[in-house]
């Protein structure tokens, strides 16, 4: 019997008997089917709403990170060209000379105090020339969608309010944004110190949380008697810690690492600074706080990885006369390693986006230098985003959006690494 013959019009079979209701039962298939379709629609729409939410989140960030900028200038930059070379193409030394000529003594002093002119990059110097000498002033910014759809209207509006202003399309996320220091001027500000701060902090977090988490997981899975009261207390405690709001960890970090252990976390014991100048609000304190924050997650993930190691492997090792630690070190941990590392990446992606606890621990609001080690003052990307978002000016929204893109890119590469690791282990087993 072929599929075509199923067609009742071909076979001539009656459909009626099957559809006739049974005595005492309304069946009401039509109504129920309609209801079924409505519910299914509701489920699908809900799922779509979730997707749309993610879509609008990304759209909103991209929308803010690119767009038109209207710039007014006090001095025509063409007049600053030297020996036929345009301002933008001048070398660092020329720019420095230019600044010394044009700037007031006092302004020059402030800038030199921040960082000497001779030590600054060309990019940086050009930025200073543009704000201080050329007098670049942002008179308006527009989001991407507005810039594309209403360009005419924007131009007309601008011609009326700022006839001398030039309208340019700006990508706020640009190489200079990654390589420049933070600055009060949004046009020049960058996330260099924030990225380095994030990396340093994460490094401290990994160095502490990874061994501690794995060790705790090994103890709980391989040594502790599951029915012992203490083991159960530890296990319940870990599950509870995973649900504590992150800001509470910030308060713990503030009290323990920043205040109580200040001599240690400020690095005073290394540099010999007195307690008066010591400041515990360092990368080390931040990293340790985040380490405590991700520790429960790290332990739970490591436990799962260790649990997934087949018992036969342990038995084989014991069968050869290995001790318990030899078995763990030589067989269990190597087999669990990919899983442990995947778990670590998840912990790191949690830590890298954390903001609230680091605000409490005391991230610095203004940092103009690269962090040089665990005892430096710090800021991290999420903090930078938070501060910029909180400013009322639209330009700061735009650089916040650009910083978000940098943060998401970091997270995305971490997750890609986790997926890669996961797939590799799945192939092996």
């Amino acid at each position, binding site marked *: 019997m072929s599929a075509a013959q199923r067609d009742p019009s071909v*076979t*001539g*079979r009656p*459909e009626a008997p099957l559809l006739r209701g049974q005595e*005492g*039962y*309304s069946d009401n298939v039509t109504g129920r089917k309609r209801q079924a379709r409505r519910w299914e629609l509701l489920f699908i729409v809900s799922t779509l709403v979730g997707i749309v939410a993610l879509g609008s989140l990304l759209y909103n960030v991209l929308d803010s990170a690119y767009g038109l900028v209207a710039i007014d200038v006090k001095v025509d930059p063409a007049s600053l060209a030297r020996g036929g070379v345009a301002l933008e193409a001048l070398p660092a030394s020329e720019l420095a000379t230019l600044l010394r000529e044009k700037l007031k003594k006092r302004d020059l002093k402030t800038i030199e105090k921040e960082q000497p002119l001779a030590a600054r990059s060309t990019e940086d110097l050009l930025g200073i020339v543009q704000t201080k000498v050329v007098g670049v002033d942002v008179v308006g910014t527009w989001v991407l969608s507005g810039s594309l759809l209403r360009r005419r209207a924007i131009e007309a509006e601008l011609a009326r309010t700022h006839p001398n202003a030039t309208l340019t399309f700006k990508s706020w996320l640009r190489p200079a944004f990654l390589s420049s220091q933070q600055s009060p001027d949004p046009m020049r500000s960058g996330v260099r110190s924030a990225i380095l701060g994030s990396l340093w902090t994460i490094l401290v977090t990994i160095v502490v949380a990874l061994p501690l988490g794995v060790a705790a997981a090994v103890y709980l899975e391989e040594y502790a008697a599951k029915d012992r009261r203490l083991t159960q207390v530890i296990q319940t405690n870990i599950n509870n810690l995973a649900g504590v709001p992150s800001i509470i960890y910030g308060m713990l970090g503030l009290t323990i690492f920043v205040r109580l252990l200040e001599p240690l976390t400020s690095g005073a014991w290394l540099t010999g600074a007195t307690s008066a100048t010591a400041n515990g609000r360092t990368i080390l304190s931040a990293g340790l706080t985040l380490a405590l924050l991700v520790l429960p997650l790290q332990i739970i993930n490591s436990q799962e990885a260790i649990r997934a190691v087949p018992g036969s492997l342990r038995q084989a090792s014991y069968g050869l006369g290995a001790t318990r630690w030899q078995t763990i070190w030589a067989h269990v941990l190597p087999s669990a390693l990919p899983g442990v590392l995947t778990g670590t990446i998840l912990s790191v992606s949690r830590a890298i986006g954390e903001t609230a606890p680091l605000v409490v621990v005391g991230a610095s609001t203004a940092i103009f230098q690269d962090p040089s080690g665990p005892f430096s003052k710090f800021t991290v990307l999420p903090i930078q985003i938070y501060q910029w978002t909180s400013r009322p000016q639209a330009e700061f929204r735009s650089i916040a959006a650009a910083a978000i893109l940098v943060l998401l890119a970091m997270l995305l590469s971490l997750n890609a690494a986790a997926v890669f690791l996961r797939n590799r282990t799945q192939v092996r087993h």
Partner: protein
Amino acid sequence: MSQTTPAIALSPAGRAVASTAVAGIADEMAIVADNVDIYYGQFQAIRQVSLPVQRYQITSLIGPSGCGKSTFLRSLNRMNDLIPSARTEGSVIYRGVDIYGPAVDPVQVRRRIGMVFQKPNPFPKSIYDNVAWGARINGYSGNLDELVESCLRQAALWDEVKDKLRDSGLGLSGGQQQRLCIARALAVKPDVILMDEPCSALDPIATLRIEELMQELKAHYTIVIVTHNMQQAARASDHTAFFMVSDDRAGYLVESGPTGDVFTNPKDRRTEDYITGRFG
């Protein structure tokens, strides 16, 4: 094609061949499977099975494990539709309608061809709600209490649970749970009840009770039962169909007929070998 095979003749290849017109005996048949093929993706699980199921009789499907008898049973009320890769070809005629036809709703099919599963699977609800559930969703308008009682009585469970109808169905013993599942199936007043190894998870005493119950139920229902227990098939069924698995792991029907004939006077060597325990 309106012809199918009430009596199965076997070709040398072991394939069932249609021979007789269906029209004459259609009234005695609850379900007629006609050249059914079932695939899971590329893999063929059932090849060319044609089997008539007699009304108000118990038909048992036997055969070695992996021969597809459960798969075939599930094709009789379109439970295989739930497996995304599963595909059924051929036709299953129920009351003159091919249930795999284009205008047929599987919900309607299952509502009339009920099922009892290998492991007892009561809902995590009270005993009462377990029985009443199917009647409720199908818009039963009569007295629900009476329906629940009569179904539990038919399933020979009433006396054991009448004082604890509000207790969870999960609190019952395995055999009681399976009888609860039978009562649950009865409550939507099906024509046919498919039973997929209903006793495999039960002890011998509970098994015997279910077998007795089947004998009582056959006055009102047609029963098709898959069993791996040949004594059970011989003891409890009126008709027997013997399935086997071919070299490419597809299941096929070797022979079928009245249980007495199949067990005492099998037409096929393979049936004889199987029932005398030479393999499987």
